[in-house]
């Protein structure tokens, strides 16, 4: 093990850790606002990656049709829950949100997909297709259960994860895909060659974290989300729509998941079920961070990435064992230190 290898492993670990950090952040966000342990996060990674890869190959991604179906389902669900009080303006907004966006995505994809318009447009289009699925899923699967216990929400999340996994197999097939990266260039730092895509990943992760920080600190929506996370009842008393907060949290999670997928698909082959294991590692990081602390989760994610990278060098057969076992001492320490854990509000 010479210094070059150490550097390469460190670099690999940091790049993977950046992805885990993004996922850990969105898991913490969704859990704090809605109490849902968002297990389908990994599916958004896979959907984002495979949608982008399909667009990159000049094909029509199957996820567009799923988006349309989910939009219609969300529309139906919302019409049903709000059937007693639905002023025309709210109705128009609902229709635009649940039917207009999928339709726009469908038309745009139809026009643009065969043209192969370049990585940036493809990435934006993939985000447009995959991100809205998250709030639609929230409307269909989680909003009706918003008052249920964490356990019920967890089970609903497992159900959504299984359904999305199966749909992924139908839409994208059993084989994996790779796609072109944002940049083919690389940066030489002494003995270390840093691929451009890795810089993109780390840079976008940092930018997204800063953006989230600004969102939570300085915007009304961000503050409403934080208020909902701190105290749901209190937030409702001061007029914050907790359902709307949930929808925003899910949208952010969908966006982050899809973006992570788009970022990793040039580096590795992504399968319809790849996302789950990536999501689990983000989850490990989120747990180490206590499911509550954003900087804690992000740092833990970096640690998970580096630990994974070094254990794949020293003991590749036990890599996953080492990574997931890392949770145990942290949980022990937390439970010994923290005493009783508050479960329900």
């Amino acid at each position: 093990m010479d210094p070059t290898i150490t550097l390469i492993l460190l670099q690999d670990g940091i790049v993977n850790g950046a992805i885990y950090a993004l996922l850990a952040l969105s898991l913490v966000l969704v859990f704090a606002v809605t109490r849902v342990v968002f297990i389908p996060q990994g599916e958004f990674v896979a959907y984002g990656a495979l949608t982008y890869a399909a667009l990159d190959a000049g094909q029509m991604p199957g996820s567009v049709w799923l988006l349309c179906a989910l939009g219609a389902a969300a529309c139906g669900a919302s019409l049903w829950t709000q059937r007693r009080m639905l002023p025309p303006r709210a109705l128009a907004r609902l229709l635009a949100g649940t039917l207009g966006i999928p339709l726009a995505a469908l038309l745009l994809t139809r026009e643009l997909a065969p043209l192969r318009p370049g990585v940036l447009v493809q990435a934006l289009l993939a985000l447009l297709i995959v991100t809205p699925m998250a709030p639609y899923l929230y409307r269909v699967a989680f909003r009706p259960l918003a008052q249920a216990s964490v356990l019920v929400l967890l089970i609903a999340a497992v159900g959504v994860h299984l359904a999305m996994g199966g749909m992924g197999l139908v839409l994208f097939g059993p084989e994996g895909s790779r796609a072109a990266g944002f940049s083919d260039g690389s940066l030489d730092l002494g003995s270390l060659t840093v691929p451009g895509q890795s810089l993109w990943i780390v840079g976008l992760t940092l930018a997204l974290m800063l953006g989230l920080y600004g969102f939570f600190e300085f915007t009304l929506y961000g503050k409403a989300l934080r208020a909902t996370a701190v105290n749901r009842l209190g937030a409702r008393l001061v007029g914050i729509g907790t359902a709307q907060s949930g929808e925003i949290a899910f949208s952010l999670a969908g966006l982050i998941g899809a973006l992570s997928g788009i970022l990793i698909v040039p580096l590795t082959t992504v399968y319809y079920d790849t996302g789950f294991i990536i999501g689990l590692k983000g989850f490990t990081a989120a747990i180490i961070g206590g499911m509550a602390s954003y900087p804690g989760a992000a740092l833990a994610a970096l640690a998970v990435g580096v630990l994974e990278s070094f254990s794949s060098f020293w003991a590749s057969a036990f890599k996953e064992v080492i990574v997931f076992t890392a949770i145990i001492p942290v949980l022990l320490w937390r439970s010994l230190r923290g005493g009783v854990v508050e479960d329900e509000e």
Partner: protein
Amino acid sequence: MSVLRPAAVLLALAFLLLAAPLLAAGARADTIHVGVTVSATGPAASLGLPEQKTVTLLPTEIAGQKLEYTVLDDGGDSTRGVANMRKLIDDGQADVVIGSSVTPVSMALIDVAAEKKVPLLTMAAAARLVAPMDAQRHWVFKLPQNDSLMADAILDHMANHGVKTVAFIGFNDAYGDGWLRETERAAAAKGVQLGSVERYARTDTSVTGQVLKVIAGKPDAVLIAGSGTPAALPQKALKERGYKGPVYQTHGAANNDFLRVGGHDVEGTILPVGPIVVAAQLPDSNPIKQVALTYVHRYEAANGAGSVSSFGAHAWDAGLLLQAAIPAALAVGKPGTAAFRAALRDSLEGLHNVTLCHGITSMTPDDHNGFDQRARVMITIQNGVWKLLP
């Protein structure tokens, strides 16, 4: 009443659905029922899907007897596989079962085959499915080549091309374990030294650590034991880190998606495969060529050009074995009886020199695979297509 009615309708429907196979089975006593359980979803879907599609092309009549196929999906899950097989035999009166796609599920099916005394034709690869031969495996026949046959071919090629040390990167599962065992054995026999042994998971997004360690050991060649597109990941990483030596893959990598995902980075890979993969390039004197091309044409006519894979051919081979074995079994007993099933098993075991897509098989009481070195050819990848090596 209006509340009750839908429930009553549902109950009636459920009853009909449950009872229909039983009623139907009674009416068709002398058709031969073939049960199929494949992993059409889940991690092994790229094996199970072509197998499932191939079943629709299998003969529906052999020696004047109608054949009926019932296909169930086990999702690569042993528990579901066992439940499927019991259902196929108990409810569907299967006389023979084809399945499953992967070794773990097929291992679990062995006990059911022995308990129900129904022959099982497995499309999974591991040699231990049919060896060592015992009372349980008495009922099991295996269609894919043994790993040992393929490992011998790889190590032969290495030894003949001056490879002294080889590094191994394999799946972190039963496939990788089996190949590691076979590689150790074959390498020792050929005097090739096995260097660093690294493992990775199918779903891994990075194998940088493993690849760096392999390169640090300076091996003459690298053997990657993975299946399907995940097998391309270590090879791309090797290339990225500047490894220049030859890379060997196993036959598990031989599908077109591997070429698609691997792109330029997998040019020059050397691997052993069943003859079907390069059927069109085989010499005309090879009897396998005709059989394999027939399957390729039938499959591509149904599923589009270029869609054929070597995995689906195992299901076709199962059909060929049945075609060869059923006539003799019909002379002994009627379909659906224990006598017929036992006779079918005996007849399968007695098959001699039957030409399949993947080779020429001669079963014996101790060898329920029956392939010899005619069942594999060495190929490489040239300009993005498989090329037969002389």
